[in-house]
């Protein structure tokens, strides 16, 4: 499964809900599927999507999906413990695992040896690992529908989608649009 296929499923399941998106190619690829005010694209801040998603969920914004890559999750590894410790219902932590830093010259990540699903489970998170779009849709729909906390580790192919435009918008504008979405949704 390509990352774009996984993002299409996440975008569909959480079509009416906030998604906090990790930086680099994943953010650009999600945006390429269609910009939504409900998407909070983190244009840098690698490893912070899970933490921001945790804050949103603790603030009562649920359901919410926080999407990391394997590299970014490993960079923000302490967040796994914080998510499990505070355990807000309605937060889905989705880790797109291609075993590489695809946005950084495809340098292999430590996920080549480290089992991210085991790390999630070790932190105490109810975790699923999936490797196809239908399995992802099923698990994610279940987590969202149940309103529970869950981690989903998604095995995807390496590389980035070709010809995806850069995301050059002012982050402040992204944040304003996102908070307006939250206010209208409340």
């Amino acid at each position, binding site marked *: 499964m390509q990352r774009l296929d996984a993002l299409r499923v996440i975008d569909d399941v959480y079509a009416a809900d906030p998604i*906090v998106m990790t930086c680099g190619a994943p953010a650009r690829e999600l945006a390429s599927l269609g910009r939504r005010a409900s998407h*909070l694209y*983190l*244009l*840098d*801040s690698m*490893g*912070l*999507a*899970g*933490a*921001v*998603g*945790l*804050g*949103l*969920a*603790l*603030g*009562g*914004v649920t359901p919410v999906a926080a999407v990391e890559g394997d590299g970014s999750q490993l960079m*923000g590894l*302490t*967040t796994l*413990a*914080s998510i499990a*410790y*505070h355990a807000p219902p309605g937060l889905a932590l989705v880790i797109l695992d291609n075993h590489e830093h695809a946005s950084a010259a495809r340098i292999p990540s430590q996920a080549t040896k480290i089992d991210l699903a085991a790390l999630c489970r070790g932190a105490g998170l109810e975790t699923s690992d999936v490797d196809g779009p239908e399995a992802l849709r099923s698990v994610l729909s279940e987590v969202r529908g149940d309103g529970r906390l869950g981690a989903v580790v998604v095995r995807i192919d390496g590389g980035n989608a070709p010809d995806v435009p850069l995301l050059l918008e002012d*982050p*402040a504008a*992204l*944040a*304003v649009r*996102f*908070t307006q979405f*939250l*206010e209208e949704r*409340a």
Partner: protein
Amino acid sequence: MSARSRRTDAVVAGLLDWSLESYVHVPSSHVAPVIAGLDDAGVPAVLANREEEAVGIAGGLALAGKRVALVMQDNGFGNALTALTTFAKAYHVGLPIVANTRGGLGEYNAMIHSFSEAVPDLLRAAGIRAEMLGPAQSPVVWRRTATACAELAVMTHRPVVLLMDVMHPATAEDLD
């Protein structure tokens, strides 16, 4: 460890004056008096493991519409700087940050000044506003400054840091 004093209680009171709804903290023995005061006041706490993570969690709470502050020690700005600049500052997140300072008068650690002394300059270079409080300011000023920092952060949509010198002997001994 710093003890609660009129000045640390004044910071707590100042945040309560601002109607603080929750706070994210990374523990430090010298910011513990503020944490204890907020805990006594019944403000919900969110414990974080590292400062950049704390910036993300607090930022998420702020985007959710909560009145939230980050409570930490100044040497954690080394961990937090990328998150502060590329997230809180870039995304215009109004986030008050209350931090105790280290490395100055009253310090007992032989090394921590090597980072903490640079913090005001680092914050300035990163374009993050910081206010400083020490023993020369009265508890009343500490309280009003804490409120004003939180108001300024939200009003100007950015992180604003309040640096508290709680280890200065005159602060620690609660002298006027």
